[in-house]
């Protein structure tokens, strides 16, 4: 049994310690918002927060997450109203949508550490997340917009 906190809830997971966190989340806990895209930390679709840092859950062993705090897209905000989620909707960012959980989780760390990122800051922070639909221009716009929303009203 491996104990960890996922989206502010305690979980005990009965799985092999070498199972990547991604599959523990998806196949065991049932949180399917975190996506499998490459399995080798190349695409970022599986990005979650481990103690507040963006990590690629496809290469993060469950054992490494033991006793730690994990936040997934499902736990990013109580009512899907994180400034990024609102901005993503306002800018019509998603297309197929498969990569967007990971994009948002990466952007959330950027925005927390750098509340007013420049285009270059955004490029640097987001280059680990691939979008095959090429929604990058709208992701950039939405991050700027979320920065504004965050400034205006905090996380509400």
């Amino acid at each position, binding site marked *: 049994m491996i104990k960890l906190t996922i989206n502010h809830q305690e979980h005990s997971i009965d799985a092999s310690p070498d199972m990547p966190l991604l599959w523990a989340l998806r196949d065991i806990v049932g949180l399917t918002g975190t996506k499998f895209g490459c399995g080798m930390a190349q695409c970022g679709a599986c990005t979650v927060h481990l103690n507040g840092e963006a990590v690629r859950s496809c290469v993060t062993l469950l054992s490494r997450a033991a006793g730690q705090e994990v936040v997934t897209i*499902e736990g990013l905000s109580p009512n*899907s109203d994180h400034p990024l989620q609102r901005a993503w909707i306002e800018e019509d960012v*998603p297309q*197929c949508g*498969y990569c967007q959980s990971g994009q948002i989780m990466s952007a959330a760390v950027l925005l927390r550490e750098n509340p007013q990122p420049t285009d270059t800051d*955004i490029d640097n922070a987001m280059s680990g997340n691939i979008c095959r639909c090429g929604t990058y221009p709208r992701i950039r716009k939405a991050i700027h917009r979320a920065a504004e929303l965050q400034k205006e009203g905090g996380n509400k």
Partner: protein
Amino acid sequence: MTQDVLNTSRRGFLKTGAMLSGSLIISFVVPGAKRLAAMGMPAAEDAAAAVFAPNAYLSIGADGSIQIVLAHVEMGQGIWTTLSMLIAEELDADWQKVKVLHSPPGQPYVHTVYGLQITGGSSTTWSEFDRYRQAGATARTLLVQAAAQKFGVSPADCRTENGEVIAGNKRATYGELAGIAASLPPLTEPVSLRSPGEWKYIGKGVKRLDSPAKVNGTAQFGMDMRFPGLLTAVVAHPPVYGSKVKSFDATKARTVPGVRKVVQIPTGVAVIADNFWAAKKGRAALKVEWENGPNVNIDSVAQLAEFKKLVTTRGDKAAEKGDVTSALSKAAKVLEAEYTFPYLAHTPMEPQNVTVKIADNKCEIWTGTQMPGNDQTVAAKILGFKPEQVNVHTVFLGGGFGRRANFQSDFVSEAVHIAKASGEFIKMVWTREDDIHGGYYRPSFVHKIRAGIDAQGNPIAWEHVLAGQSIMAGTPFAAGMKNNIDEASVEGVSDSPYLSSIPDHYIGLHSPKLELPVLWYRSVGHTHTATAMEGMIDELAHAAGKDPVEYRRALLKDHPRHLAALNLAAEKAGWGKPLPPGRFRGVAVHESFKSYVADVAEVSVDEQGVIKVHRFVCAIDCGLAVNPDGVVAQMESGINFGISTAMYGAITLDKGKVQQSNFHDYRIARMHETPLEIEVHIVNSTEKMGGAGEPGVPPVAPAIANAVFAATGKRMRDLPFCNINLKA
């Protein structure tokens, strides 16, 4: 549209889908209804009594909820929103009460032009423009009749607004009227549609209806299917595509905790386990000996040499006018160029996966697919079932780009074989490596062009021979092939607008037959033909000493839609105006899927020869843009997709083995590798409607290549560009 609607739970999804089918059965005779009944859908009395389903595309519940059933699938291109807009426009629906569903396989959902159930060819909006508006208008007409009956007034005295029918001070919601409406006789006269001046949504657009579910993790893709008792299957595929299992030893694999079964299937050995990780570990522990198939001899270098030999002969005639040989001999100057294109993998972000349950003489399939009807047929054949014993539940596609529209239904077929061989309820999951090694590539092509210009620099002769595998051969679409010509190989060349002004031309095609399967990839033949055509036209402009935009304008003077897109892009890009030092422009214009797109690319090339694309200005004439921001989004998408393809895309084979395996060596453009500025302009057009999903891709590579020529004086004719040394 409420979010809970979009976040319909699996149970809700199935239930509403079934209810809809039930309502179809009670309300109207719809082709396919019997088949749905035969699949064990609930009998009429199980469905809500007052449900009104005037046609297969929408139904209205007693609570006023409106279900829109999509004959096409959402894979990012935005039809979830656009098709719903078409119905809502005519229905006066309350957006808050709209639910959207993908249709099951069925006759009512067959493409209005292509004759099979398919999402492809950038055709959804124009092919459904009338059908979906009619569906909404029919419903509204019947609801008005129902209200007139209820209120004791004439239908002419009724109007509709936001999900209600209003007559004087009387009003009733669509939900309240659904029961009466369902009892009315079907309409005998065609309903009239609203005139453009009355449109509330068409041409204006609404926010994407699928965004809320796609930003909080609740959007359900095939990969996300979860059911009690569902196991995960991972397949050991041969290192050379199409090879067969000679023997295997699963002793070790079976000892991996969580592994339940190991079964042989036609395409490999499947390891079935409690979860993906156990299945993948089980696969790693398998020992498989393979019997090499015909693809073991494929070598990309040798194949390219072979194709280059082929294009020195004329091939099958795709188009011809006058006497090109004689015209070339009289030209003031003849330019010769060879363009080469590798195989490409589609790599949608969601790797292929299919969930299959076979029980009680029925097969249930959950997947993201562009051709659910074909998948149904293929699955039925494998199982010895009738098609109506197979149902396909289409969920969101995590990208398609053509890979999920396959007449072989390779992914569905493999999963059905696993379920059949194992007797288990399984979700087959491909890894990214399985996806990249999984065949069905954009075919590799070689183009050889000889173009002659006269003393003024005008093209007078054009000889163009292509070599590459046919996509359509062996598919039902092959029936449309004439004189051995697959239009998907030569589209964009044989029908090029430039040829109409070139008196003597010849277009020839070689279609070598190889066992490695090929497939349409976003924009199909135009992925390569636009690069060759727009590259060569640029070469001619340079040889003629003319400005690339001016040169094209003159040649396209009788092609107003090309011209409109070209002029708009050039104007908005500031063509001819000074640029910051080190920056250069390139232009390309190309028609595909009935839309006309021009791009101006702005690039720089550094001392290391690295290309940076700074800006793209795009103009499209797609006729009426039903959802303009959706069109803009597809152009942005096409530009970035086109950049990946142009800069990095290549699948190469050595002794039959694909040499790439994941995103580290099959690269997709990342944010910092895409232009900071992308501007899209829509030509104000009342011309025939065209598509948007694909037409943004073809002009991207030539616009970049032409800009790089302006920067360096070097022509890039061999894709992908990252392999070209621009240093020195």
